[in-house]
């Protein structure tokens, strides 16, 4: 989204951020479960200006065979950004960054999925970022977990994710692209809300120990907001016209 003003004020004196949000307010989030007919499970998320589509296949046969594990199923994640997802065309080949994010998302989902029930199989998660605006890994993780639930993969809990960070010496929730570029710290947090366990925690920037603790707390609170929306997406698809 190259059009925005680069010399903007990140946080004004009234505590309003560059895109008009309060310090503890996430962007507008919309999650939809299902949508892809040929995938076993799928989800679409709009997280502010991020637009991400996730498809899940499996459990299914592992190819190449040597990757399979006789004790448990394996999880494979591909995070990919479309060439048109960013301001300047991105080369479509997986970059170092995309390979790393694939691994990070895989490791954030692994504590939740119960693949030990399906030995010798694989579950494939394909994440396509259609439009990126900062915080795609969190949005992708959130959508991937909805898609896995949609595919009927047994899970101990959903994984919700959101980034917290530090901008203009203040801890904020849900870092957008500008705040990520010009801010002081960015901390993606992945969280299992029912089990109250963190599955993803990264930090780019410098925080004092107190700020660090506050940042994690803010992130976890944000994840709970995201979780409600994940819940709603699944309820809408499966129980939409039923009375509870």
């Amino acid at each position, binding site marked *: 989204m190259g059009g925005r003003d680069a010399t903007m004020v990140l946080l004004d004196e009234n505590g309003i951020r560059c895109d008009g949000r309060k310090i503890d307010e996430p962007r507008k989030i919309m999650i939809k479960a299902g949508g892809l007919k040929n995938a076993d499970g799928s989800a679409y998320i709009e997280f502010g200006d991020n637009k991400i589509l996730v498809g899940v296949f499996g459990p299914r046969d592992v190819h190449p065979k040597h990757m399979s594990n006789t004790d448990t199923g394996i999880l494979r994640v591909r995070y990919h950004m479309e060439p048109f997802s960013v301001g300047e065309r991105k080369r479509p080949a997986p970059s170092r960054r995309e390979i790393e994010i694939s691994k990070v998302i895989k490791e954030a989902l692994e504590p939740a999925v119960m693949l030990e029930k*399906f030995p010798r199989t694989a579950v494939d998660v394909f994440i396509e970022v259609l439009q990126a605006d900062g915080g795609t890994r969190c949005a992708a993780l959130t959508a991937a977990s909805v898609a896995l639930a949609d*595919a009927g993969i047994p899970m101990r809990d959903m994984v919700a994710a959101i980034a917290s960070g530090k901008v203009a010496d203040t801890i904020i929730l849900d870092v957008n692209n500008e705040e990520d570029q010009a801010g002081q710290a960015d901390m993606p947090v992945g969280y299992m809300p029912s089990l109250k366990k963190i599955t993803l925690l990264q930090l780019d920037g410098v925080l004092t120990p107190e700020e660090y603790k506050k940042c994690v707390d803010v992130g976890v609170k944000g994840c709970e907001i995201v979780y409600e929306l994940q819940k709603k997406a699944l309820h809408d698809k499966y129980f939409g016209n039923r009375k509870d």
Partner: protein
Amino acid sequence: MADKRKYVIPGDIVTSGPFRPEQNVVLEGNNIIATAVGISEIYDDSVKVIPLTGKYIPKINDLVIGKVISHTSLSWELDVNSCYVGFLPAQDVFGRDFSTHADELSSKLKTGDLVAARIANFDRTRDPLVTISDRDLGKIDDGVLVKISPSKVPRLIGKKGSMIQMIEMGTNAAVTIGQNGWVVVSCETDEGLLKAKKAIEMVNEKAHIANLTDLIKDMLDGKDES
């Protein structure tokens, strides 16, 4: 005991207390947590979740429809719409005195044939072993294969088989339902066949509707000519 039904998604606490966790639930501390999107049911001493989505996972004694995908000199491999292939040993068809020299496997079942089979054995270490040596089992000679979602098979069968009986009565078709979501319909008349097929597909699409039985009945009676 169906009064304690609840719609759940993975991570939801179904209940807490001394219950035995059954299908699609796990015990975490003192809470019983759902692991699938579905409907939870609490019985006297146990809890389970009926899933609304997911692939077919073989279970011993399930009747399944399989498609022969290949054979070796000792066994056939069946596609049973699961993440595992069904293993059908030649002895099961030829009997104990099966000999790799005398008997040719493709003389009985060829690649692409449909069979009604039963899961004889399955555990996490091996692919499911299937058998066709029982009455009502074996090669399917005629009929049309309809694929539905495995999680909707119970809906197609209905309470004590009510739904499927209604479809069979209404169309004079014979319907074989595999637990794996594959259904074979055969009928003497083409109209009956098409009607039964349409009814099954309708159940698959509208499985969540409460008065589905009436809807199917109307369709079978020819009231729905849209």
